């Protein structure tokens, strides 16, 4: 990457664009700098859908926004644990040595190719047992993991202190989340903090499959337990999540994007979900591919965007929900690391992209959930909104040309109070995977600068050889713009207002302005 060259030409402005916080602008008026949270384009009208959290700060504020577990499932959990960690008969022990035979990523761990991967991720137990490796099999890597464990115990003075090692263009970052240790080895220009955020996602991914209670229980009883036994067949979820972390702006922005849809149609869909409620139902989520159509939640219960991304990842990684109706335990770690929810997952129609996820607290409630889905579908299919929704699936994004700003190639806009973001499709110049990842890398750099732990910036303009970038954050929104190299800084600055006006005009379609509860 030509990151170094770009960095040296980078210049940042600190105060010029800073919003005047006292200047409140009313929703109906044109969006001007000075937007405060809650009035920015895309802000929901009633209440937020998500737990309010600038989750980038999650690492330091861990636990702060953890909701109190309303739903006490510890009893049930303990029951399940007994079965899981109960003594295994010899016979069973026998058939357990199977964990990695289905892995396809056999790769020689001594090869140059293996060493040159941009980003390695390893997960191990505190006893140093391998649990996950992004590339190569864990067996082949067990000695590497051993070395890492030794490093971890040396570098960490006390628990939960995170350190990193920088050497030779390579960064090694450690995240200790007892009983797991996560290690990232990166050749990218990402900061430690970015890398840690990614490791944290991987940690949550694993917790979502097992619950933290179960993890702790297992390792308390058997320090050198081979966790791969329980994670068998889930490696691809972690692989996919890592892939998303490189590519999905939502994970970077701690936000979710919506399917563009006329608000009248979206409201019909939402109220359909609202009507199809059930005692044990906590969240009803309708997805179109990687985009949210709507989310209806139980009053006073909030979904954290990390949890929602884990659900996206689960649904998006697997074709298994195409068959019939899925019913699976899932832990939503930002909601409650102790217990499982049970998710009813099904597509509205066999070949449809529309996937409905009904999250219930009761594992016995499959048929009730199935009935909710049926009621929802029956109601929806009678209305024209269903047709509008299906039409909207045909153009799940929009081109940047619609915004009509010269030299603007791409942007990310996040409304902080709603936790939703919008972004046009990638233009011609960023069609290849490599180019898209490069652009995402640039956005990540900007993001790091805006969120720098000791000197955060409010705005940042950067000229590069291939594009010029502007990032801007206020208390209401975060905005990242990518211009062709022909663009000038003046042009970029004037574009901000234009873009905000456009988003305000389109916000009905691009955001969920009136989230519902039941």
């Amino acid at each position: 990457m030509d990151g170094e060259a770009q960095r040296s030409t980078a210049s940042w402005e600190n105060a010029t664009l800073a919003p005047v916080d006292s200047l409140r602008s009313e929703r109906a008026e044109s969006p001007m700098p000075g937007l405060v949270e809650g009035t920015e384009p895309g802000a929901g009208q009633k209440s937020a859908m998500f737990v309010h959290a600038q989750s980038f700060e999650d690492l330091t504020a861990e636990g702060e926004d953890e909701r109190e577990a309303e739903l006490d499932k510890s009893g049930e959990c303990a029951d399940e644990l007994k079965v899981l960690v109960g003594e295994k008969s010899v016979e069973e022990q026998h058939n357990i040595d199977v964990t990695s035979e289905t892995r396809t990523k056999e790769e020689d761990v001594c090869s140059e190719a293996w060493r040159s991967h941009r980003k390695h991720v390893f997960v191990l137990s505190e006893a140093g047992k391998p649990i996950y490796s992004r590339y190569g099999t864990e067996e082949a890597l067990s000695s590497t993991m051993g070395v890492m464990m030794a490093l971890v115990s040396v570098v960490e003075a006390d628990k939960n202190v995170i350190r990193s090692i920088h050497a030779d263009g390579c960064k090694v970052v450690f995240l200790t989340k007892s009983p797991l240790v996560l290690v990232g080895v990166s050749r990218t220009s990402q900061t430690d903090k970015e890398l840690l955020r990614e490791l944290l996602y991987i940690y949550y991914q694993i917790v979502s499959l097992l619950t933290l209670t179960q993890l702790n229980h297992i390792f308390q009883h058997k320090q050198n337990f081979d966790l791969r036994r329980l994670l068998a067949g889930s490696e691809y979820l972690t692989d996919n999540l890592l892939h998303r972390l490189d590519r999905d702006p939502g994970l970077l922005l701690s936000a979710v994007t919506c399917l563009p849809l006329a608000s009248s149609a979206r409201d019909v869909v939402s109220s359909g979900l609202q009507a199809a409620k059930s005692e044990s139902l906590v969240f009803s989520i309708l997805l179109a591919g990687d985009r949210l159509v709507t989310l209806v939640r139980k009053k006073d219960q909030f979904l954290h965007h990390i949890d929602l991304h884990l659900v996206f990842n689960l649904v998006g990684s697997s074709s298994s929900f195409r068959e019939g109706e899925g019913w699976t335990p899932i832990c939503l770690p930002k909601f409650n690391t102790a217990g499982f929810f049970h998710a009813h997952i099904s597509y509205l129609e066999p070949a449809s992209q529309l996937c409905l996820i009904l999250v219930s607290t009761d594992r016995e409630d499959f048929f009730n959930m199935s009935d909710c889905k049926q009621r929802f579908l029956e109601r929806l299919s009678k209305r024209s909104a269903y047709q509008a929704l299906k039409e909207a699936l045909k153009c799940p994004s929009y081109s940047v040309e619609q915004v009509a700003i010269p030299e603007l190639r791409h942007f990310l806009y996040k409304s902080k109070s709603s936790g939703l973001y919008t972004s046009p499709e990638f233009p011609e110049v960023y069609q290849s995977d490599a180019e898209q990842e490069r652009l995402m890398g640039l956005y990540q750099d900007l993001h790091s600068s805006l969120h720098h732990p000791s000197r955060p910036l409010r705005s940042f303009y950067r000229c590069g050889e291939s594009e010029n970038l502007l990032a801007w954050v206020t208390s209401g929104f975060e905005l990242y713009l990518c211009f062709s190299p022909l663009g000038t800084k003046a042009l970029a600055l004037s574009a901000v207002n234009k873009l905000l006006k456009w988003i305000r005009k389109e916000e009905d379609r691009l955001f969920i302005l009136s989230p519902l509860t039941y």
Partner: protein
Amino acid sequence: MSAMRVDAKVVMLGKESVGKTSLVERYVHHRFLVGPYQNTIGAAFIAKPIQVGEKVITLGIWDTAGSERYEAMSRIYYRGARAAIVCYDMTDTSSFQRARFWVKELQNCEEHCKIYLCGTKSDVIEGDRSLRQIDYHDAQDFADEIGALLFETSSKTGNNVDELFQKVAEDYNTTAFQYMTPEETGVDLGQKKDSYFYSCCHNN
């Protein structure tokens, strides 16, 4: 929308990747999906009506995930089941061990559940006999011992798959009214919910 009655709960059990999902896929959709293997996550439910003589019986099939991770959850899938299809991969010895485990589990917890042993991937063995790891007679002996029926199937060719499910439905039909299990008549709330009215997806 029509509310469809699910007559018999049928559960698919067995080690991961033995071919449970492929069996259901073959039986319900008459196809075999090639491409990378996708583990089932949790379990999948599918209702399938089947003609038995004059009658139509609807099987409510639970295709469970083989991963050990879900083992603690498995009871909700097999509780109250009238039939269990316990699968093993005929080319994989360890999967037969796992099948024994499920049989034991069912015998302990679900005495009214009829067991069908199913050796999968017979097409692979036909291609190369040396790949067979589970002798037919050993499997048959085991089946006799536990009072189960044995089927050897291929989801790839469809061999014996319809026969298996047909037999499940017929057996249900002949024994359905002989007895009611205590759980079916009991007042266990949890149980009530997964009994016997299931709304089917075929609306209009």
